[in-house]
């Protein structure tokens, strides 16, 4: 009994890590742009596919050991995925920001960009699922009768490291301070001599590269890729970010793990088809009862 609890705990930690990594991206962009980048889950998907192409390319053209391929893939994937995110910002969101367009239009654009990425992938690459090559031998560690693979541990460690890095950047560096400043008052920031576009691009770089990392790790853990993998995970990560309090990194991080735990609990007691239903119901309830989430701060309007 206890072992299955621990087993489930490990799984929850793993899924929670994926959600956290993606939720961090959502929350950062929201903090800086007050925009829910609905396309972020699909950037995760793009990251996974980029990782796939890089890995198969490296394996095919150079005979490198799996570990080396992995070591090369990680930074390449992160950089390229960051590129995708920045491109999205540049082509779709920045022009609207320049025009001072209503936020509604930007949100719709974000939703649509996500759909373009998903369906574009499906249209260009076809419906056959891609299978990610095995790069690292799985090593199973067993403590008692609880087993965990080195991969799962790596995933959790990555999530925690990323969170610590981000927390450092946001609280200790100048650009992190600029990011926080923008979330309070977008108009004052350029007046203080801070190049707002640079900060925004930096935010997208951070968010997208970590989503890319999540994509790579996910592809390693669950090697079958499909164009819509980002959609539902993106939504779950988004739920996590909202539950934690969107705009706050700690909220996203904790929210991700919270959601991971809740899902594992649900699957333990209910049929698995209920998993998504319950996740979304939780979202609804939180949004109705405490829309600012765990760490968020309520904004009041002056009448």
């Amino acid at each position, binding site marked *: 009994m206890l072992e299955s609890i621990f087993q489930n705990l490990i799984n929850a930690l793993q899924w929670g890590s994926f959600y956290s990594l993606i939720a961090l991206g959502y929350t950062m962009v929201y903090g800086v742009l007050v925009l*829910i980048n609905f396309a972020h889950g699909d950037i995760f998907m793009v990251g996974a596919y980029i990782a796939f192409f890089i890995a198969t390319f490296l394996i095919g053209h150079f005979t490198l050991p799996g570990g080396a391929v992995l070591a090369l893939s990680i930074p390449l994937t992160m950089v390229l995925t960051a590129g995708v995110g920045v491109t999205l910002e540049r082509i*779709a969101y920045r*022009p*609207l920001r320049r025009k001072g*367009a*209503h*936020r*509604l*239009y*930007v*949100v*719709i*654009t974000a*939703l*649509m*960009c996500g*759909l*373009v990425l998903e*369906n*574009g992938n*499906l*249209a260009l690459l076809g419906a056959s699922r891609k299978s990610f090559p095995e790069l690292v031998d799985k090593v199973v560690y067993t403590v008692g009768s609880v087993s965990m693979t080195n991969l799962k541990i790596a995933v959790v460690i990555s999530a925690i490291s990323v969170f610590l890095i981000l927390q450092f950047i946001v609280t200790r560096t100048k650009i992190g301070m600029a990011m926080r400043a923008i979330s309070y008052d977008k108009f004052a920031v350029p007046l203080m001599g801070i190049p707002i576009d640079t900060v925004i691009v930096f935010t997208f770089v951070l968010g997208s590269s970590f989503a890319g990392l999540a994509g790579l790790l996910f592809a390693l853990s669950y090697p079958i890729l499909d164009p819509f993998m980002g*959609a539902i995970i993106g*939504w779950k990560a*988004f739920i996590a970010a*909202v539950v934690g309090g969107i705009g706050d990194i700690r909220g996203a991080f904790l929210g991700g793990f919270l959601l991971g735990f809740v899902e594992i609990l649900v699957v333990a007691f209910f*049929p698995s*088809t*209920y998993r*998504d*239903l319950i996740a*979304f*119901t939780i*979202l*609804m309830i939180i*949004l*109705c009862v405490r*829309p600012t989430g765990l760490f968020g701060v309520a904004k009041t309007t002056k*009448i």
Partner: protein
Amino acid sequence: MRRFSVPALLLIMSAALVGMAYQEYIDLYIQSVMMFICINIILSSSFNIVNGFMGEFACGHAAFMAVGAYVSSVLNVMLFTNDKVFGPPVLSPDLALYFFPLVLLAGFVAAALAGLLVAIPSFKTRGDYLAIITIAANFIVTSTIINIDTVGGSRGFMGMKKIIYAMEDVVELPWMLIWVIVSTILSVWLIRRFVFSTYGKGIIALHQDEVAAEIMSVNTNKMKVIAFMLSSGLAGVAGALFGHILGYINPGSFGILKSTECLVMVYLGGMGSLSGSVLSAILFTLLLEGLRFVIPWVDGGLHFIHLLPDAYHLSQVWKWVIIPLILILLMQFRPEGIMGNRELSDVFPRLKRWYSFK
């Protein structure tokens, strides 16, 4: 005389359409395109109530379509057909014709009640958060249907074709076409009556300044409930008609893609323009159908000039790249859509001579 010009025109056009369908001058494909145009008109204009006139940002319209589709289909199949799950018909199939409007009404009511699911949260939330709530509601509705095995779950539900046969057995007319046309005219008429009355203008006031509306004696919560319920209810009617035309429904057809279609139609036509949403529904449906032919031509053409590798063919999935792209371009270059928030009579004032619009 001016009061009756447009109704008379509509009556003549509808009668002509039905007549041609009956005589089989227009084939089934054209008939179904016409019917989908009408269904999209209902979807687009009902969605416009909430997203356009009331200025909210709901994204889950397809959820209410699903409710209406399932409730009315299950009701009809249960009452009038011999079904594996529901058993023999409860009432005689001959009555299916007379009960159809009632079944549509049941779909309306069920969907309207489901609309409360988003109406109540809307009291306290707006903008992005309401968008999320409505998308979540969309997922919740489809997930719930997937989990209900008696209506087929993710495999879908069918049997509605038998209802159509039952109706045609009584009087041989293209009944679905008739019901669709009548429902469309009724929906647009209802919406128009609502939005152009002082009562309905309350929701426009709500949009432009909610605080001022509340202080000027508009019961904003009640208006939100009415708007959401009317909007969802009509979406339910559209869903019911959709289900019966296809003869088969499954939760997958009422997901985020369907809601996206509704979003495109509303913003293409113009938030807050009834004539805009009717126009954009027509244009959009024709566009979708047109792409069915255009994509293979483009594919052929691109292969002919050797721009595409031989193994690769443009599939219909490109439709789903083009549609979101349209909306993205719209947001960039003409976010107010075709008509903005004006009506046909504002753009062409001469029309006012022929028909009293408001």
